[in-house]
């Protein structure tokens, strides 16, 4: 994506004088090496180190934790994909926090003028390297795509944003998966082994509650909010996180689900803890469905054009993720032309949702 520096800096609102680099090393490769050095110090200084492996969309990913403080924050959303001992990882993500390991955070060598949307750093996000800082959380994400090595550091575990508790390491997964024929998409998914539906739409459209309503039905839960789309010939969706979120005012619709946490007006669930039998790691995509909350007498489907689905799915995917852009747009364009697309008009009777969606899937034994 092009970087409209002048426009964005105008919005910052104050004149920002470039500052001198914090240390002599500069450039993405040198900075990445410095980050790696800080992580190794965290491993040596920390109380413990732990490794966990996950099989994500057929790619083995290893998380190396320096200290244990981030483990209960990062891993619950990924626990359904745990695959320890499955072999050598294609991607290793090293994580630490400055507060409990005592290793601190690496110095940042760039200027305040180098920040770009999504906290990406101009000059430090290249074809090989990606670097971003979450300003509010004082959190660094960096990856060397050629080596399959990434780092995620945060000053204090207490600063991890609530939104990330259900979708940990989202940026790193997005950067790396995009290189490996998997496109992160902003959508929920439910289905069975023969087929599934992608539920797309903006926040508040009803996709999360539609996905959670399918728990307990013959439709299994692939994911909410973010899934991975396989870029092979046949469209296929892969589970990434087992989390689900609904607005607090909608919690009453899901009395059997006990939230793991609640904040920002939302309740967060981990389906792996509540209904592990209802999770599905992957399935073919049979349809794209756009839920719509409204004054509908009953829940029903209405066909929509491929471009209507593209308009609902592509912008929210592209602009929630850094450096997404054309590749994501093309992947979603291809998807919506491959499968039928529908508007799901949600009526007051939620119990009919699974049956309506099941009607879109290939018949036969799941």
């Amino acid at each position, binding site marked *: 994506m092009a970087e409209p520096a002048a426009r964005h800096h105008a919005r910052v609102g104050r004149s920002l004088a470039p500052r001198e680099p914090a240390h002599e090393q500069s450039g993405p490769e040198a900075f990445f090496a410095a980050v790696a050095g800080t992580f190794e110090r965290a491993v040596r200084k920390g109380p413990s180190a732990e490794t966990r492996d996950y099989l994500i969309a057929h790619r083995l990913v290893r998380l190396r934790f320096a200290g244990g403080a981030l483990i209960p924050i990062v891993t619950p959303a990924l626990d359904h994909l745990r695959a320890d001992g499955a072999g050598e990882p294609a991607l290793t993500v090293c994580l630490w926090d400055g507060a409990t390991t005592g290793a601190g955070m690496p*110095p940042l060598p760039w200027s*305040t003028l180098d*920040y770009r949307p999504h906290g990406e750093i101009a000059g430090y996000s290249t074809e090989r390297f990606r670097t971003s800082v979450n*300003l509010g959380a004082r959190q660094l994400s960096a990856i060397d795509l050629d080596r399959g090595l990434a780092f995620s550091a945060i000053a204090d575990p207490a600063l991890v944003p609530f939104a990330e508790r259900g979708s940990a390491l989202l940026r790193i997964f997005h950067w790396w998966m995009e290189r490996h024929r998997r496109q992160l998409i902003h959508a929920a998914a439910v289905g069975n082994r023969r087929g599934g539906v992608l539920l797309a739409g903006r926040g508040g459209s009803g996709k999360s509650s539609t996905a959670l309503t399918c728990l307990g039905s013959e439709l299994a839960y692939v994911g909410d909010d973010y899934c991975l789309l396989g870029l092979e010939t046949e469209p296929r969706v892969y589970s990434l996180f087992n989390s689900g979120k609904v607005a607090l005012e909608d919690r009453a619709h899901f009395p059997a689900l006990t939230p793991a946490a609640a904040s920002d007006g939302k309740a967060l669930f981990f389906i792996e803890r509540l209904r592990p039998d209802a999770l599905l790691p992957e399935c073919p995509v049979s349809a794209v469905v756009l839920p719509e909350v409204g004054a509908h007498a009953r829940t029903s489907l209405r066909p929509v054009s*491929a471009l209507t689905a593209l308009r609902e799915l592509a912008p929210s995917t592209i602009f929630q993720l850094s450096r997404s852009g054309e590749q994501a747009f093309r992947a979603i364009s291809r998807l919506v032309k491959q499968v039928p697309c529908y508007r799901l008009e949600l009526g007051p009777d939620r119990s009919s949702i699974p049956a309506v969606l099941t009607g879109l899937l290939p018949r036969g034994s799941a």
Partner: protein
Amino acid sequence: MSERFVANEPKIVFEASEDEVVIVNLDTGSYYTVDQGGARIWSLLIRGLRVAEIADYFERANPGHVPDVRSTVAGFVEELKAEGLIRIATDDVPNTMTDPPGVAGPTFEPPRLLKFTDMESLLLLDPVHEVDESGWPNQPRGTTHA
């Protein structure tokens, strides 16, 4: 308006059918839909036809039935230009529409460009006013965390 135009790629990405065009401006976060009438003009425009050639085409296809074709097409193209969705072709873009266009369809309908801006906020920067001695930005006021 005697220029030829091209889609303003790579700043924008688009997908077009006979009935509709979806355009995303990757720089601004705005995205657009163009209705059937606009999709016909868009398909002719990005095939290298000038505004006058597009108007001529619709007037020939609808003799005596379509008022204000020229001004309507010109206004729509100006709107596309103002939104940064097309730019003047700097190279010699061939007119690839020597025969009556099957894709565009002969019926002229006033075009409509709908703009959506609900994603723009995702591209706004958090303010970075000061950094500490190690280069880390100071936490913006009012930031809340779980």
